[in-house]
């Protein structure tokens, strides 16, 4: 885990520990932190693959205003994971391409 355990100045008030899934793999994070931060803490740096050039993309702007960290979260594509809070049991998947919109009722 890439977590800062000791810091000379800061003390981190982290949320409750929760389980989530990245591409089917079980991981641990803190409730309420951005999904992207939880993934980074788990060493995951590639969040999507771009539609045209098939380039890997990851964390970038951290304020939900670029398109770098779009992922499929609980089936929904184009979720800005840098500003979306992690919740228990979330299914987070690498997004390839522009994102498939789930059919109604799915």
């Amino acid at each position, binding site marked *: 885990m*890439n*977590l800062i355990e000791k810091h000379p100045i800061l003390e981190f008030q982290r949320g409750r520990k929760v389980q989530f899934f990245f591409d089917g793999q079980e991981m641990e994070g803190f409730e309420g932190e951005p999904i992207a931060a939880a993934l980074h803490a788990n060493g995951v*740096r590639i969040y999507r693959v771009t539609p045209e050039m098939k380039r890997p993309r990851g964390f970038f702007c951290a304020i939900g205003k670029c398109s770098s960290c779009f992922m499929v979260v609980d089936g929904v594509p184009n979720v800005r994971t840098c500003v979306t809070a992690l919740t228990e049991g979330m299914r987070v998947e690498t997004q390839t391409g522009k994102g498939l919109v789930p059919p109604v009722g799915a």
Partner: protein
Amino acid sequence: MRETEILVIGGGPAGLSAALEAASLGAEVTLLDSDLKLGGQLIKQTHKFFGSKEEHAGTRGLLIADLLFRELEDYKSQGKIKVLSNCTATGYYKEDGVVSYVVGEDEYVRIRPRKIVMATGAQERLIPFHNNDLPGVYGAGAIQTLMNVYGVTPGQRVLMVGAGNIGLIVSYQLMQAGVEIVAILEALSKIGGYWVHAAKVRRMGVPILLNHTIKEALGTDVVTGAVIQEVDSKFQPVGDPQRVDCDVICLAVGLTPTCEMLWQAGCEMKFVPQLCGYVAKRDSLMRTSHPDIWVAGDAAGIEEASSAMVEGRVAGLAAAAALNYGTPEVLKERSTMYHKRLSDLRAGEVGEKIREGLCQVCCECWGA
């Protein structure tokens, strides 16, 4: 439709100060902030601020935020300030002066304010180099968020691009988080930030390579290194490019004011290089050419958090005054005091650029 007397957009140092000032005069304020946590960049600053006692000099940025939050609590409990976190303003509609915003992603709301203070802060600049979209190339602000708000290290070995204050401060913060700084690159022949910030990292052995720029990020899936290049005063390459190993490339090549909604409102804008981009023309009380809109902080031109807080006070004061809050005596007294503080903060060598920039966009008054 929701209504409010004063809508402050942005809950960083400028916006918080504007909201507090306006509320102190009795105005009813709504403070909108896009982040999950209020405070803007302040809450990521572990270093102590410069300035004087009034700007909480010698206090760490994040603790200054705490002071402002404490002040805020009183007004919140009195119902004078309503704080909307995790709410991003999405547009300004000129025809009826309505601002739209989203709460998270799933709720959309409209609000019609009588007056607006735009304290939308800054956005990071990017520079072109090969592979600059590879995971591991991060903005300095993003790294601060990851590291100082959520306690996650961005990587093990960081190459910092840019030796302005942000580059220097974030390098230091990275070291505090136990991360190695491979080098700090600066394309110019002199660091852009405060000398003492540079000395802090130099003395811990971090090389600051002047006249150096990044040419390429290396790696197929994620950053594994970088190619750097020495350049002359015209940014032309000198000698052979060099390879460095790193897993993060941090871009701290400058900020530019966030002013989309000022454009949408039709405010008169001007490109001022010293203020780092397009900024709204304003009067001495921070009112733009739009009679109901004020600006403050980095959105009005890139500067320090300390002056952003004072500018926020000025804008909050003026917006409240426009709604007839406060007596002329109080307004006069406070604005004189804030102007004095601003000119002190901008008086030094480092403030010269700011002073030159402000000359180009400040007009006496819009005739109101």
